[in-house]
Every structure is written in C-alpha cells, then in structure tokens.
C-alpha cells in the first residue's frame, strides 16, 4: 500500500438525506424527514439496537455515523471519542424550552431533558460499544480538523487509546444537519488531508 492509502482513515459522512461510507453512498433517501432517513439506515445496517429509537436527533445522527464505521472496523473498548459541533444540543434544547415556555402548560419530559447536552451522544456510543475510554465534546464555529488533531495524536502516541473516533456531528434542524466521523488509528494522518476529505463531501451536498 502506498502512504497515501494508509493515511486515509475510515470515515462516514451524513447530510441532506445521504449517508456516505468511505466516499461511496451507503444509504440515501432524500425525500423523507430525518426520522425516516434514520429508520431506513437502521434497517439497511441491520443494527438491532432498539434504544436507538429513544434517542434525540443529534444522538441518532452520531450513533448512525459511528455504526457505519464500526461495521467496517469494530471499536476496541479503549477507542476514544473526540467530537465537535456548532449547534450543541439546540435541537433538544428547543424541544425542552417549548415544554416549559408557558407557566400554565408546563410539561417538561425527562426523556427530552436528558438530551439537553451535546455530549450525551458520546455516552450513547460508549454504551452501545462498551467503550470505557476518554471522550470529549467541543463546540466550534465549523469543522476544523487541525483543532483536535494534536489531541488525537497525543492520545495515540501516549497509548491512552489505540484509536480515536473523531469528527463533527451537528444537528440544528430538519434541513441543517451534518455528520463527518473518521477513525484515527495512527498518528500519521494530516489534518489537512482530513479537512480536504470533509470539504469534498461538504461542498458536494
């Protein structure tokens, strides 16, 4: 294998009704709402994990992207998770907000409230794959591989984690969502290469 081949990690990209695995469309249905897209992907991947249907939309997005990658490269229990996004948990925050907006109609739901933190999706993935590893969730303006690359490289170089599932999971609305997750297994991957990979998908969808 050439250096170029080894330096591209396994990755998954999701946006606008399409799910890509390593550059190829893995599942797509651009005509249905997000919820149906996820249901279709769940069936496509033969996931068999009923807890999936209780998750909020951010967790479903993150979960499905990680699922696509793990089907190709199963995670070790020390695989670290380093995620980021822009909208934090706003999608669930808004839902919670609506339930408490009016004093006379005040019905918050614990099932919604529990998702009013962005890093809950890291927990969902950890529970699914039994990861007892380091995890972090950052809030950035946009996806920047270089912002987390030194951290990921350090985790691998110091043997704190054999691999890092890294990337971007952002859910703002039915029409504005995007996931780009990639699995780093060695510290030779350049942030620029990852940024280019992201840009290619981001610009084409």
């Amino acid at each position, binding site marked *: 294998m050439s250096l170029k081949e080894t330096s591209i990690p396994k990755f998954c990209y999701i946006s606008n009704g399409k799910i890509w695995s390593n550059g190829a469309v893995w599942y797509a249905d651009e005509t249905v709402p997000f919820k149906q897209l996820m249901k279709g992907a769940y069936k496509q991947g033969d996931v068999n994990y009923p807890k999936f249907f209780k998750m909020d939309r951010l967790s479903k997005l993150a979960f499905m992207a990680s699922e696509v990658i793990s089907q190709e490269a199963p995670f070790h229990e020390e695989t670290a998770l380093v995620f980021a996004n822009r909208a934090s948990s706003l999608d669930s925050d808004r839902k919670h907000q609506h339930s408490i907006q009016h004093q006379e109609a005040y019905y918050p739901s614990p099932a919604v409230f*529990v998702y009013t933190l962005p890093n*809950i999706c890291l*927990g969902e993935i*950890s*529970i699914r794959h039994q*990861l*007892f590893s380091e995890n972090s969730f950052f809030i950035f303006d946009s996806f920047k591989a270089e912002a987390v690359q030194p951290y990921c490289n350090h985790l691998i170089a110091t043997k704190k984690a054999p691999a890092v599932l890294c990337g971007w999971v952002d859910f703002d609305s039915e029409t504005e969502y995007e996931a780009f997750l990639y699995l780093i297994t060695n510290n030779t991957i350049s942030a620029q290469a990852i940024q280019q990979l992201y840009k290619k998908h981001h610009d084409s969808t």
Partner: protein
Amino acid sequence: MNQGVAITGMGIISAIGNDVASNYRSLLSGTTGVQRVSKIDTIHRDAIWVGEIEHSNAQLEAALKLPKDHNYTRTAMLGLWAAKEAVADAKITSDAMVRTGIISATTVGGMDMTERYFYEYLHSEACRKYIESHHAGDHSQKIATALGINHGLVTTISTACSSAANSVMLGARLIKTGRLDRVIVGGVDPLSKFTINGFNALMILSDAHNTPFDQHRKGLNLGEAAAYLVLESDTLVKQEAKKVYAYVSGYGNANDAFHQTASSDHGDGATLSMQKALEVAGLSPRDIHYINAHGTATRNNDLSEGRALIRVFGDAVPPFSSTKPFTGHTLAAAGGVEAVFSVLALQHNTIFPNLNFESPMEEFKLRPETQATERELTHVLSNSLGFGGNCSTVIYSKATPS
C-alpha cells in the same frame, strides 16, 4: 516535572457549618445539618429533607460586601465564601510570579436565579442581569476576579456528582506536570427547585433522613455547599515554608458505559476509578485506611459502590463511611466537601460516622463505621460517583508518596 501536590488551605460552607472548624465539630459530635427546607418556596416542603446552609442570600451579600447592583447568584456567593476561607487559610500573599489557577465545579450554575426570574425576563428589565450569570462558568470567573486571579487558568467542570473530585484531579495534574504552581480546586451547588424537582421526578429523594448502605434506604437528601482546597507544588511549599495539611497522591476517573443516568449495578466505573487512583498513587488496596464513600443512599448508588468496594478490596474492605447524612448530597460540591472531610480525617486521625445506619444490605455484609473513631490514618480514599457513570476517586495522603 512530577511535582508532589500539597494541600495548604481549605474552605467550606455546608449545612453543618460556615467554616472548616464548625464542620469538623459537627462531624465529631454527630450533628446532622439535614432538616426541612426553609429558604426555597417548594410544594415538596413537607415531603423532603435537605441540607440547607444557615445563611440567606441577603446575609451572604452583606458578609461578602457585594455592591447593590451585583448579579451574583447563590452559587457564586457560596463559592466565594468558601474560596476566601481556603485562600486565607493557605496564607497566600499575592505574588504575580506564582502561576495560580482556579478550577471550580457546579451542576446548577445560575439556575437558582434563572428559575426565579424565568417568566419575568420577557417583560422585566431589572432581573435580566441574571441572564449573564446563568452559565456554569460565571461563578468561577467571579471568584477568580474577587480573589485577584487575573492571569492564570480559570475553568469550570460540570460532570454531575463527580464534578468537584474532577476539579481536584485536574488541578493536581496541572501542579504535577508543572503547568501551575498553585490552584484553588473544589465546587459549589446551592439548593434549587431545579434540582429538587429533577431528583423528585427521578423518584430518588427520601422522605426521611438518608441512610447510606442500609438495607432499608429510601433515597437521598439534597444539600447545598461550597468547598475548596488550595493545592501547591512542592517547590512553592519549600520556597514559602508552607504548612502542608496533606497531599493529593492519587486520582482516577472512568465512565462505566452503562446508562445515561444510572450507574452499573456491578460498579464497573467505580471499580475502574479506584484501581486507577491506587495505581497513580503507587499504593495497594491494603494501604488505604479509611474510605469516604460516595454513599448517597439511593438503591442504585450504594449497591453499585458497595460491589465496587468488594471488587477492589476483596474481603478486606477498609473502614468506610458516607458523610451524606450530615450534609445531604451536595452534588457538584460533594467531591470538595468530602475532600475537606478526608483531609480533616487525616489531620485528626479520625474516621467520621455514617449516621442513620441500622441494617446491612442483603447483597453483601458491608457495615460502615457508625461512631467517630480515632485511628492512625495515612491514606484516605474518597469516591465521587456521578450520574451517567462518571466515576472519580481521589486519594489523600499524609506524606507525598516517594
């Protein structure tokens, strides 16, 4: 590099006292601070018991000499109160050359004011100043400013009930690796409707005084507190000829990948965090002389933590107790409160009692200490186990491990 992490100051305000000395007296005399709630107007008033701090917001404002138009929440006021005691206790003379930081933990942030003014924000200008103090980091910044920490690291940790233990851990790591010379670590959470109603919805609030590790435990009592330690490097201690109370010798944090809120029934996370802490301290289980357990008295925590204790210590579980019956469960502050109690235990060679214990749990034979007992203590282990399985352990030692 690899500096020892010395504790040179402590401060606390809790339901059992407004300073370290009064907390210690209550612990020795077995005086609980858990009572009926008096400062929060809640429909659960007669159904729950809480560990409430004596001072009202007005008393705190006056004592802290806050200006009239301030936007301190109760979180910031309690935090500043305890942090001031810690800094005074450490006899810190301001020195710009000492790299000083503060790491404070909270779960509710400014929610105490937000829940009061939430519906008013839309039409009343006067209360909007509290919108800016809502976020978790506000209290840390206010404490830093009030203490004159203008250049160092100021950060906030919010990992549920393990929060303050994690701020001790992060602070210790920053000292150990030479990034800071001095750091104030701990946490604060006031009582609020937010937590009362939230924990009530989870059905884990007891309608009686909490009884950790008891077969008939009915859940937790919430409490409010702030507690901080001053951590300093060996070099600084030597330079300034500081008196050292104890050392942070080990720490560990783990998640148990089990559930969004509950801890694993087998204590996977707590087992990992205790093992990691022992490893960092270079100690074996038999070196631990006392465990200040998390012991919230919920069905889930005590079963999970008890099983973890057995997994780590086998049939030689050291004397242990939960001090939650004194203070209530102070959430993000718990790891700070129990850090102060662990250091007091080392200083006075005293194990504090687990009040209200009667019957051992059916799952195992563990019996917490029920009397204040004098015993030579060298290493004390403190657990703080958070919702979602964020589990932390800190080990406090009389001397720095070689």
